[in-house]
């Protein structure tokens, strides 16, 4: 079985994000970058398939030269190789543009299943996996909190607000997973050492036959008109107990008022 895990380099989730005032896109060089934490759940599912079936797992990353540390981080979980698509024209792509590049990269290789994280921690649109499935005319099984492959059949539990639906299809298919699906392991130090010797296939848009005009900021379907920094944190509400246990009631009232309960 061949598995592809698309991964993304994102700003450190613990750090402040900076928007470039001119391009109105995130300044990706402004701070530390990390492998998107949601990708770790997709990688864990792929590693489990590798352990169970000997699946060959390849990571796919769209990003500039500097993103290779992110690729090595992904490979350190014991994956087999990587594809990197890098091209200046990709910069500023919206979700649809990104999906076009990923779909083109996938069309260029063999695979049985593509496992995405359901969203990236920077954009959080959750659009890309379904868009890729649509562009490739493949079954789309998103928001999986459970997945199982048996022969060429795949079953997922698709999470939604009221529970989950059982969704089945045949392979090849595109899956996106939510964080409830597993508990990602830590990379092994030997995996870290082995990562640098794993094959990395670097491709440009021309290699994939993608028209540079169809991606990037110029062709984005979404337009950013304005942005504002996050407002400063408002002062909290302090609930004081008068000794009678009143704080519990006050707290419950407040939570009800805020619709937490």
């Amino acid at each position, binding site marked *: 079985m061949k598995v592809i895990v698309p991964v993304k380099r994102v700003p450190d989730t613990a750090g402040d994000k900076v928007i470039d005032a001119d391009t109105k896109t995130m300044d990706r060089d402004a701070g530390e970058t990390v492998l998107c934490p949601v990708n770790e759940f997709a990688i864990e599912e792929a590693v489990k398939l590798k352990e169970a079936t000997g699946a060959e797992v390849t990571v796919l990353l769209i990003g500039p030269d500097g993103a290779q540390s992110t690729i*090595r981080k992904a490979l350190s979980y014991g994956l087999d190789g990587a594809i990197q698509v890098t091209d200046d024209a990709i910069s500023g792509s919206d979700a649809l543009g990104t999906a076009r590049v990923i779909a083109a990269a996938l069309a260029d290789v063999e695979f049985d299943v593509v496992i995405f994280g359901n969203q990236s921690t920077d954009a959080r649109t959750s659009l890309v996996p379904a868009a890729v499935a649509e562009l490739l005319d493949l079954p789309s099984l998103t928001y999986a909190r459970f997945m199982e492959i048996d022969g060429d059949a795949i079953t997922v539990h698709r999470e939604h607000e009221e529970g989950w639906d059982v969704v089945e299809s045949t392979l090849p298919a595109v899956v996106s997973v939510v964080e409830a699906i597993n508990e990602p392991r830590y990379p*092994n*130090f030997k995996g*870290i*050492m082995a990562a*640098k010797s794993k094959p990395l296939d670097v491709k440009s848009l021309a290699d994939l036959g993608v028209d540079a005009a169809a991606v990037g900021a110029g062709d984005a379907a979404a337009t950013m008109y304005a942005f504002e920094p996050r407002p400063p944190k408002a002062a909290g509400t302090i609930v004081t107990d008068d000794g009678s246990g009143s704080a519990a009631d006050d707290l419950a009232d407040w939570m009800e008022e805020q619709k937490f309960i």
Partner: protein
Amino acid sequence: MDVPRLLPDDEAQALLDLVTTIGERELRPRAATDEAAGSFPRDVVAMLGASGLLGLPYPVEVGGGGQPYEVYLQALEELARAWATPALATSVHVLSCHALAGYGTPEQQERLLGPLLAGDRLGAYALSEPQAGSDVAAMTTRARRDGDEWILDGTKAWITHGGHADSYTTFARTSEDRTRGISCFVVPGNSPGLSFGAPESKMGLTASPTTTVNYDGVRIPADNLVGEVGQGMAIALDALDSGRLGIAAIATGVSQAALDAAVDYAHEREQFGKPIIRHQGLAFLLADMATRVGQSRATVLDAARRRDAGQDVSRAASIAKLTATDNAMAVTTDAVQVFGGYGYTREFPVERYMREVKVMQIFEGTNQIQRLVISRTL
């Protein structure tokens, strides 16, 4: 707060990032609870093994991580910054592998060392005895040959992982010659005749089990003799520097944790209308603490780099052990001072740090022994 480090390559940085992540997520949150309960975190140590962190300084060919001491010791320091007990477990485990890695046959390295370096088995190091502490050659535990076996009788003291380890690297007397009459053996933890005293009730490192180990006619295969008969003292002495550097790195890590806690607190705690770090008396105390932590790390890394370059590091390792553990005692004591009355309570970790580092001035050669070693090289 991440410690800015100078590391030789990207892999070393990735290793330190991994150790920091594991430390923050898996070690630090459990430290206070497990130390209070005296509960050995065997699952945490197993997780360190699965992550490849229990064999870092040994060659890749025998199953290790192939890391220089410069990198291994910084990883150990980083573990100790999160929680001293798993860092000590790692250091003792690595020490228990030293004889097999340096003196074992290829067959022993595959059979006995491989599972230790892979983290599948936990090692212990049985050298000290009740009456043979600093004076190692005073040991009385004996081994006698019987056909294809060795039979061990005696008692070892202060053994970290006693009762928990799968493998005890044991030194025992095979003749009366004071130094050339000691040999090194690997004793499986499930050997009949092997028993353990109750865990010592200690001042600190309470989650790390320390027991006596009793050998009562313990039979082991002749193939579990490591090196030559009579080579045990040389093997033990050869491991001394590495063991001391491990403790020095752990002491540095706990010092860093105490400094981090004190600095955070000094920024938050306000007296006379401003954070106490803005009062010069406290600020200078913190500056002295930071200076000591820097000194400790510098002497540890100097010794590590010399060891990696193949130099004799006997003096450098003793200087590092003496510097880092005396500094750790001072820094953790000062951290309690920064916290004031709160620092004396078990609500905050600094009193625990202070209790944990005291023993580091004692084990792996008391700091008086370190001064002896240093002075003899002058």
